């Protein structure tokens, strides 16, 4: 599996994400600049956190029209894994790859802390290594992480088990139904506000994020295997 870690102007968790997938998990991965127009040869896309384009206009709005986006959409349509954390999640919703939107935290404050989460659905390719309803700890760090969607969208998310992570022991941003991460209907595009890439080793405070990447590596297949 070869992963593209997309870099936008203002991405600041790009190195963490590359380190998580390449150095900790041992997968092939490299940076791809947002201005590139091809993702050929890549088996998956990882979109890091940060402040793409300085959060101008709305978080993720300008990045969602970057030159690389049509290729990210192509991989998503082909069923390859597309993962966005924090600003990456905001970019995925602005790009229409995931429903809903992320708005300013209820507190109007930037929240940076470890947060307990509940793994609501372990039947996805991103979560098989977790136990059902496993309670995990991941860092969060965001000012605009309140997930909202209209009634119909929420009903659909619930009906299809697309709510993958919810906040436990308090809701840090006012997200509807405590939503921390959702997946698309097809099950290959995941967006979440918490940062699994910052929880890869106990030495750094926790390793609950590693199971997410382990699930991806286990459940998605390489380009060559698909073509073979």
């Amino acid at each position: 599996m070869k992963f593209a870690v997309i870099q936008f102007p203002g991405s600041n968790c790009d190195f963490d994400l590359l380190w998580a997938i390449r150095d900790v998990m041992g997968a092939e991965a490299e940076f791809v600049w947002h201005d590139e127009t091809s993702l050929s040869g890549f088996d998956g896309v990882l979109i890091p956190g940060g402040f793409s384009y300085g959060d101008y206009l709305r978080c993720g709005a300008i990045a969602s029209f970057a030159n690389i986006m049509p290729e990210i959409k192509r991989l998503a349509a082909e069923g390859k894994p597309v993962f966005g954390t924090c600003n990456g999640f905001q970019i995925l919703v602005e790009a229409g790859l995931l429903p809903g939107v992320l708005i300013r935290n209820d507190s109007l404050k930037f929240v940076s802390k470890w947060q307990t989460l509940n793994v609501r659905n372990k039947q996805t390719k991103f979560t098989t290594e977790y136990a059902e309803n496993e309670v995990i700890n991941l860092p969060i760090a965001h000012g605009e992480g309140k997930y909202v969607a209209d009634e119909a969208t929420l009903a659909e998310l619930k009906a299809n088990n697309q709510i993958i992570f919810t906040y436990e022991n308090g809701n840090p941003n006012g997200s509807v139904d405590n939503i921390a991460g959702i997946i698309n209907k097809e099950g290959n595009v995941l967006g979440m506000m918490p940062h699994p890439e910052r929880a890869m080793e106990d030495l750094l405070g926790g390793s609950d994020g590693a199971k997410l990447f382990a699930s991806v590596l286990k459940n998605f297949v390489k380009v060559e295997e698909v073509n073979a």
Partner: protein
Amino acid sequence: MTKATVYVTYKESILDPQGQAVQKAASKLGYDKVYKIRIGKYFEIEGTGSAEELKTQVEALSNELLANPNMETYRVEVQD
């Protein structure tokens, strides 16, 4: 109730990187008639008293708080 609206924009001489970034995105999307975007702020204010009284206060407020006169200009509109 009297209503005032305040539009705060950068002075022409001030660089607006946010506006420029949005303009670039618009141009990438093919909006070729759009060549300049500048982003400002818009305030909806409700108050009491006559239009004139409110306007005097809102102008002072704009000058003191809503805008930074060093780099921004503002325009106040009041409706009774």
